[in-house]
C-alpha cells in the first residue's frame, strides 16, 4: 500500500482525496499554484508545496513540476483527481517511468479511451450497442454526407479528442453538415491539437446515463450502479442522481453488462465510467468511457457505502478488490454549486467569499473547499461545492436537497445554488421528466 500520496489537483476533489487518504492512514502532499496558497487542500494535507504560478499550464498541468514535487517529497503515488492531468496518457507514462504510482488506469487504457472514435469502434466490436455513425474518423465532408443519408438526420459531429462539448456540432441537413464538419474539425484542432472528428446519429430526447466501474489489476471488475446525468447546461452536468429514475431491472441489468463488456474491451483498470445515451424507447448506446473519478461519484458512494476514492488507491497499489460488492440502498442526488451568475448567462463569479453557511443535518453531505474569507480565483474551474442529499427514496432526497440548497449561502459571489434548488424542486424534476433542456427552462 502507498504510504505517501501526492495530489495533483486542487479544490473540492483534492480535499476529497485527502480525506480518503486520511482514512487509510496515508500521508498526503498537496501541490498548489501561487494563486492557491491559502487553499483548503494546501491546509489539510500533511505537507504542501508550491509548484508554479497561477496559470494551470505552468502549475497543475505542468508534468515536470509535479514529478519534481513528488520526487522531492518522496511520494509513492500521485492521485490526479479529475480534469488537469487525470486523462493524460503521457503523464501516466512518466509516472510509471519514474517509478511513481499513478492512481488511475494504465497509459494504454487512457490513450484508447481518450481517442473517442477508436474507443467507440473497440467497444462496438465487443458487442456493445453504439450510436449508429462512422467507423472511426471521417476523412472529408462528402463522406460525412453520404453516411448521414444512410443513418438519417439529424447527426452529431464530435471531436475524437473531445470533451465538454468542444468540437461538437449538430446538423439537420447536407449543407449544414458540410459546414459542421469543417467547423468542428477546426475547433477540435484549436482546443485539443487534434482535428479528427467522427459522426454519430443524434438520438432525440435521450437521457445521459452512466455506469460506475471498479476493476482491479487481477481481473476482477464490478459495476457500482448507474447515475443519471441528463440535467446539463452546455454539456456541463449540473444535477446528478443515483439510481437513474424509472429504469426497469431488466434494462438496468443490460446496462451493467454492457458497461462491463466495454471495460474488458478497453482493458480498463481502476475506477471508470461508461457513458450511455438512453433513448425514450428503452434502447441505449455506448458513447464514451471516462478514465477518471467523476465529479458526481458521491451519489454512488451515498447509495452503496463504497468509498470509490479509497478503492482507487487500493486498486492502484495492486491490491485485489476482494469482497467489495454493490448493494444499493435509498437514493442520492447531487447539485453542483458553481461560482457563476445564472442571471448573467452563467458568467464566472470569482471573488472573496466574505461569509458562508454550509448546510448540514440528516442525509446531507457537502464536498467543498470553500471557507469564510476564501477567494475563488479566476484561473480554474468554478465548481465550489457539491451538495449531496441521501434519502430512503427519491422524494426524500429531493426535499432534503432543496432545503440544503436554500440554506447554502456564500456572501460576496454569485452561485448556482438557488437555481439548482429551483430545478430540483420543480414538478418536472420531481416527476422525472429529465431532458437536456431542463436547465434552460428555468434560466429564461
Amino acid at each position, binding site marked *: 500500500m502507498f504510504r505517501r500520496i501526492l495530489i495533483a489537483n486542487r479544490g473540492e476533489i483534492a480535499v476529497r482525496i485527502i480525506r480518503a487518504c486520511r482514512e487509510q492512514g496515508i500521508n498526503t502532499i498537496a501541490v498548489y499554484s*501561487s494563486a492557491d*496558497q*491559502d487553499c*483548503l487542500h*494546501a*491546509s*489539510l*494535507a*500533511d*505537507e*504542501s*508545496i*508550491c*509548484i*508554479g*504560478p497561477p496559470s494551470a499550464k505552468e*502549475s497543475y498541468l505542468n*508534468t*515536470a*513540476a509535479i*514529478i*519534481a*514535487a513528488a*520526487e*522531492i*517529497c518522496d511520494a509513492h503515488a500521485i492521485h490526479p483527481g479529475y480534469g488537469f492531468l487525470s486523462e493524460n496518457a503521457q503523464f501516466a507514462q*512518466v509516472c510509471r517511468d*519514474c517509478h511513481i504510482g499513478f492512481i488511475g488506469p494504465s497509459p494504454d487504457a487512457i490513450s484508447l479511451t481518450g481517442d473517442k472514435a477508436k474507443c467507440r469502434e473497440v467497444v462496438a466490436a465487443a458487442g456493445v450497442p453504439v450510436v449508429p455513425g462512422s467507423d472511426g474518423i471521417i476523412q472529408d465532408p462528402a463522406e460525412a454526407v453520404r453516411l448521414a443519408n444512410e443513418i438519417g438526420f439529424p447527426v452529431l459531429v464530435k471531436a475524437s479528442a473531445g470533451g465538454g462539448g468542444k468540437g461538437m456540432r449538430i446538423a439537420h441537413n447536407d449543407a449544414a453538415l458540410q459546414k459542421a464538419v469543417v467547423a468542428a474539425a477546426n475547433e477540435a484542432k484549436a482546443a485539443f491539437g487534434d482535428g479528427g472528428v467522427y459522426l454519430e446519429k443524434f438520438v432525440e430526447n435521450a437521457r445521459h446515463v452512466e455506469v460506475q466501474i471498479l476493476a482491479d489489476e487481477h481481473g476482477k471488475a464490478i459495476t457500482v450502479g448507474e447515475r443519471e446525468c441528463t440535467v446539463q447546461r452546455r454539456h456541463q452536468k449540473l444535477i446528478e442522481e443515483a439510481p437513474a429514475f424509472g429504469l426497469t431491472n431488466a434494462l438496468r441489468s443490460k446496462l451493467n453488462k454492457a458497461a462491463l463488456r466495454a471495460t474488458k474491451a478497453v482493458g480498463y483498470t481502476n475506477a471508470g465510467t461508461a457513458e450511455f445515451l438512453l433513448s425514450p424507447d428503452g434502447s441505449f448506446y455506448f458513447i464514451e468511457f471516462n478514465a477518471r473519478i467523476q465529479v458526481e461519484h458521491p451519489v454512488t458512494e451515498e447509495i452503496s457505502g463504497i468509498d470509490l476514492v479509497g478503492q482507487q488507491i487500493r486498486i492502484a497499489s495492486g491490491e485485489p478488490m476482494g469482497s467489495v460488492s454493490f448493494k444499493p440502498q435509498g437514493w442520492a442526488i447531487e447539485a453542483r454549486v458553481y461560482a457563476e451568475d445564472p442571471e448573467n448567462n452563467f458568467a464566472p463569479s470569482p471573488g472573496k467569499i466574505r461569509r458562508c453557511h454550509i448546510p448540514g443535518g440528516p442525509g446531507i453531505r457537502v464536498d467543498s473547499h470553500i*471557507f*469564510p*474569507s476564501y477567494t475563488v480565483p479566476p484561473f480554474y474551474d468554478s465548481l465550489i461545492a457539491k451538495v449531496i442529499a441521501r434519502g430512503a427514496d427519491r422524494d426524500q432526497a429531493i426535499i432534503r436537497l432543496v432545503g440544503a440548497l436554500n440554506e447554502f449561502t456564500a456572501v460576496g459571489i454569485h452561485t448556482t445554488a438557488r437555481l439548482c434548488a429551483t430545478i430540483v424542486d420543480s414538478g418536472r424534476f420531481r416527476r422525472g421528466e429529465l431532458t437536456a433542456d431542463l436547465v434552460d427552462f428555468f434560466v429564461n
Partner: protein
Amino acid sequence: MDLEKLKELIAILEESGLSELEIEEEGSRIRLQKPSVQAATYSVAPPAYSAPAMNPDLSDDAGTITASQATKDAIEDGGLVTIDAPMVGVFYASPSPEEEPFVKPGDDITVDQTICIVEAMKLMNEVTSKVRGQIVRVLVDNAEPVEFGQPLFAVRPVDAS
C-alpha cells in the same frame, strides 16, 4: 535545515510516546507535534516545503504569509532583492559536484549570468540573474529541495544606469 535530519526527527518522535518535540539552535527552531492532540506543524527557516496544520487558516489576516514570503520581505526591508526559484526542484550551487559554485557571497553578478541550477525531472535548469548587483547571501544549501518562488539568493542591486 537539513531535510533528512528533519525526517529523522519526525521518525524519532513518531516512535516515541511523546506528543511534542522542540529544538532551538542558532536562530532556527523546529517544533514537532503529533496530530492526535493537535495538528502537526513544523517550520524551518526558510522551509523547503511546509507542513500545515490540519485545519484551515482562518485567521483574521487578509491572507497567509508563507515562510518564503516572510524571508523575502525581511531581505527586501534591508534594501536587498531576492532571486527566486523559477520552478520546483533541487537546488545546485555548482555545475557538478566537483566544481566550484557558480557564485558565492561577495561576487558581482550581471544580468543573464547563470547563478545556479534547479533540477526537475533530471533536467538541469540553469537559473540566470535578472539583476545586476552583488551576491550578499545564498539562502539555501546545495542539493536542497526548493519550491516555486522560494528565495535562493539575497542580492544588493546596482543601478543599471
